[in-house]
C-alpha cells in the first residue's frame, strides 16, 4: 500500500471515531476539573496586590514610632493634579523625626491619578502609595483622606509580598461596602 493510501485510511478511521472532536472536547472538559480563574470578589475572596502597586496613600512612621513626614510640602509641589494639601506646624514633643510635622496632610482622591510622584518627591520616604484599592465612596467627603487615617497601619503588612488571593468577608458599612481580607488564608493565583 502506497503512503498516500495509508494516510487516506487513517484519516477515514479518525473521522469515523470522531477523534478531533474528542480531542477538542478534552480541553473543554478538562477545565471542569480545575479550580476557577475568576476571584469570588467581593463575596469571599480578595486580590492582594504586589508591593509595587499604587493604591491609597499611606504615611509612614519609623521604627521608634515617629512620623517620618516633615511637612516639607514637596509632595504637594510634585503633584500634577494638585490634590495634596500640606500645612506644617511646629511640634517639639517628638511626634515626628523633626520638629516640623504636618498639621494637615490631605489627599483628594477624586483628583488623584495615582502616579506616585509624591512618593518620588518625598525626602524621608514618609508618603507611599499603599495597597488599599477599594476607594469607592458614597459621599464626596470620603473622597478626601487626611493624616490621621493615613497614619494607621496598613491592612496588608509590608512583609507580605502580595500577588496572592486571600479569603475575605464582605461587609456593608455606613461608608460603603468593604471587603476585609483574612491574610492568614491566602492562595497563589493560577495563571
Amino acid at each position, binding site marked *: 500500500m502506497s503512503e498516500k493510501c495509508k494516510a487516506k485510511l487513517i484519516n477515514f478511521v479518525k473521522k469515523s471515531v470522531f477523534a478531533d472532536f474528542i480531542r477538542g472536547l478534552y480541553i473543554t472538559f478538562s477545565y471542569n476539573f480545575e479550580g476557577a480563574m475568576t476571584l469570588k470578589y467581593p463575596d469571599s475572596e480578595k486580590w492582594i496586590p504586589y508591593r509595587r502597586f499604587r493604591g491609597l496613600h499611606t504615611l509612614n512612621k519609623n521604627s521608634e514610632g515617629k512620623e517620618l513626614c*516633615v511637612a*516639607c510640602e*514637596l509632595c504637594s509641589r510634585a503633584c500634577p493634579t494638585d490634590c495634596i494639601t500640606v*500645612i506644617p506646624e*511646629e511640634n517639639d514633643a517628638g511626634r515626628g523625626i*523633626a*520638629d*516640623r510635622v504636618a498639621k494637615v496632610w490631605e489627599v483628594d482622591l477624586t483628583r488623584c491619578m495615582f502616579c506616585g510622584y509624591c512618593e518620588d518627591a518625598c525626602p524621608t520616604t514618609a508618603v507611599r502609595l499603599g495597597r488599599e484599592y477599594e476607594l469607592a465612596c458614597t459621599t464626596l467627603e470620603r473622597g478626601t483622606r487626611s493624616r490621621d487615617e493615613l497614619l494607621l497601619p496598613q491592612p496588608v503588612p509590608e512583609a507580605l509580598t502580595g500577588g496572592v488571593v486571600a479569603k475575605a468577608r464582605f461587609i456593608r458599612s455606613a461608608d460603603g461596602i468593604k471587603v476585609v481580607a483574612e491574610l492568614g488564608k491566602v492562595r497563589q493565583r493560577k495563571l
Partner: protein
Amino acid sequence: MVNIKINGKELKVEAGKLILDAARDEGHDIPTFCYQADLMGIGSCRMCLIEIEGQKKLQPSCITPVMDGMSILTDSPTVVSARSSMLEFLLTDHALDCPVCDKGGECELQDMVYKHGPHTGRHAEPKHRHHGKDYVLSPVIIKNSNRCVQCTKCVRVCSEIVGVGVLGSIGRGIHQEETSFFKTYLDCDHCGNCIEVCPVGCFMRLPYRYTSRSWDLKSADSICTYCATGCRVVIEERDGLLVRSRAQLGVGLNSETLCARGRFGYDIVNSDDRLTTPMVKKYGKLEPATWEEAFGAIRKGFRSSSPARTGGLISPRMTNEEIYLFSKLFKGPLQSNNVDSSMRWSPEAVEGFAAATSMTAGGVSIFDCMDSQSVFVVGTQLSDENPVVDYIVRRISNANGVQVAIASSRGMKLDSCASQTLRHAPATEGDLLGAAALLLADKDAVRFAGNADFNSIKATGIDTLAARSGVSRSEIEALVSSFGSSETVGIIAGTEFLRFPEGSASLALVVEALRGAGKKVTVIPVLDRCNQRGAWEMGAHPGLGTAYSREGVKGLGFAGMMNTASEGKLDSIYIVGENPVVEYGDGNFARDAIGKVGFVVVQDTFMTETAALADVILPGVTFAEKDGTYTNQEGRVQSINRLLPPPGDAKRDLEIISTIYNIFSGTDDVPVKKSAGIFAEIREKVSTYAKVDLSFNNEKNTFNDLDNKESLVGGSSASLSMPQVTGSAASSLASDGHAGFTLVTGNHLYHSGRLSLRSEILGGFIKGAIVEISEEDADRLGITSGEKVTVAGSRYKAELVLKTRKGSASGVAFIAENYNDVPVHKFFRRGESVASVKIARS
C-alpha cells in the same frame, strides 16, 4: 578711568571700582555670599574668586579694585572649579535639612549649588553641629547655626546699618557662630534685618516659622503703611492669611532693610477684630445692615445737614486716590471746606511746616539730602519714628564722611554717628534755630530787615534764645560754623515742628539764611503717617486745596470741628480711618463732642472707640486689600497692590467713597472700582502730580535704582504763610509750675499711632507702658531701669515702668503716644504736647 579687560573684552572703568562691580555691570554673573554693596567688604566667602592673568592665585573680586591693564577672567576653568570646590566646602558642615528649613526654595545656597556646585560631595566625615534644636533669639528671630555659611552679613547689617550691634561672630574656623552675647535673648530693635540678609536658613522669622513654603506664597508689591518713609515691601499670603512682609535687595529706597513695624506689623490684616459688615444705628443700637441700608442712611443724614455744619476727617493712612476723592466730595457736592487729615495738629501748624520744609517746591530725594557735606537732624526722634531714614543716614554718613549734627531733647541711636549732638529743652526747637538763624544772618541782616519773624527773634536776642533752649551759645556757634564750612547742607526736620508750631518760622529763617549765603540746602520733612504728605497735597486740609493752592473760604480743622460740635453746631461728620476718641489731644472732649454731632459716619477697619459712637459704620479695608498710591515724606509717589479680597462684606475704601460721591453728585461720574482712573484724574487736576511716573513700580530686578526720581512730585507756585502762634509751649509749661520733669511724646519704635497695637507680633515686643528718662536722672532719683514709677501731672497720674535712655537731656520724660492703658494726652492741655510732671517710685 583705567583700561581693563574682562573675559577678553576691553573696557574703560572708573579707577578704584571693584572688579565684582565692573564685571556685574558688564553682565557677567559672579556668585557671592558675603558681599553686599552697603556693607563693609570682608572677602570671606571666596565665592567671587576670579582669575587675573599673570597672577598665580585667584583673587576675591569683591574686595579687589581694578587696576590699569588688568585682564580678568570670570569663567575660566580654574574659576569654575574653584567655585564648585568652595561650595563643596560650605556643604561639608551645612546641615542640609532643606525639607525642614524655612528658607528652602528661596535659599541662596540652594540656588548656588544648583547652578555652580558639585552635585555630589566627597566628605564622609561627621558634620560639626553647633547645637541641637533651633533656639529663639528674640520674639521674632529663631536661629539655626548649623546652616550658617559664615558670611557675617547679619553681624555687619546689625552694627553698620541698624547701628545696634548686638550680634557677633563667636569662635573661629569651623566653630564660628554668628549669635548674641552667650546666645542670650536679644534686647534689640527687633527689626529682623539679620533675617533678611541671611542667605541661608540660619536666621529665621519666628512668626513665619513652619507656616508655608516659599512656592506656596502669593505676593504683591506694596508699601509699608506705618511711618512716612515709604519703604517698599513685598507682602505675601497663604490661604488668605498674610504671613510675611519682606524687603528686596536693591528695590525701593530702603533696599533690603526695614524696621520692626514694616517687617512684623503686617498681621493687623489677619486680625479677628476686623469689621466685616456695615452697621447702622437702629433704635439707639448699632446693628448689622446691608450696604443699601447704610448708603440710604448716609444719603438721609447728610442731605439734612447744611454745608457749613458738615465735616470730614480722613486718615493720612489712606491712599492718594481715596483722599483726593474724599476732599472732592466735601469741597464739591457737599460744599463744605471742613476737611482735615491731621487731627493731632492744627491746620496753621501744617501750613507753617510745609512752608518751612519747602514742600511746595516739590519732592526731594533723601539720597540728594545725604549727598550734602553736612546734615542737620532736628525736631525728630529719627531713630524711633523713621528707623529706615536712620539707617540711610548712618550708612551714607559712615561711608562718605558726612558731618551729621543732631538737635533733639532725647538721646537716640543715631547720636553715635553724629559729629555734634545738641540736647535742648523740649519744645524749644524754635529757640535753638532762632539763635542759629541770628548767627547765620549776622552778615546778611539787610536781607531779613522786613521779616517780622526775624525781627521778633532779633528782639529776643541770641543769649536769651540759647538760654531758653538750654544749649550753650558755643554749641550753637559750632553748629553754625559746621554749616559755614560746607557747600551743601541737608536738613531733616520732623514732627516736633507740628507739635510745637512756633519752631517753623525759625526753621524757615535758617533755611533762608543758608540759601542766602549761597549754599545748596535740601530739606526733608519726616512724618509719622504713611501718606501725610499725600493727604495735604490732595487737599485734605481746611485752608488749602490740592497742591497747597489757596482756596476761597477757610474751613474748620479738626479742632475747630470739635469745638463747633461741643456747642452742638455740627450736624454731621464723616470720619475715615481715624479714632479721635483716643488719639485726639483731649479724648473725653472729642467723645462728648462727637456724641453731640447729629449724624456720624465712621469708615474703618476695626471697631474703634469712635466707631462705637457712629450712626453708620462702613467696613473698609487695609493696605493689603486695595490698590492706590502713597506719597511719602520726600514726595515720592509709590503704588500699593491688592493681594487679598476684602474680608466678609467689607468694601474697598475707594469704592465706598466713590459710591457716596456719586450719591451726592447725582451722577455716575466716578468709576466705582478702579483706582487707576482716579490717579489719572489726579495727574490731570493736581499740577504737581502731572509728571509723576509710576512705571518703576512694575520693574523688579536686582539692579533697580533705589532713587526713582521720576516718581517725585513736582513743585507748585503756591505760597504759604507762617502760623501766628499765640501761646507757646514754654508759657504753658510755666503755668504748670515746674515739677521736675518735662513730659513729651512721640511714636514708639515699635508702634505708629494706635493701629499697630492691633498687631500681635509688635505687641509682643513691649509689655505695658514705659516712661523714659535719662540715665543720669534715674541715678539721681535712685531708680533703676525696669522699676515701676508713678508719673504725676496736674491733670493726670499714671503708673508705668521706667526705662532709662542713654544721652537724653536732663529733666526730660517721654511717654509714647501709642499706649492704650496710659493715654499720654491726658497729661497735656488740649492741643498741646508738653507738660510738667513729677516722677517717683511707686
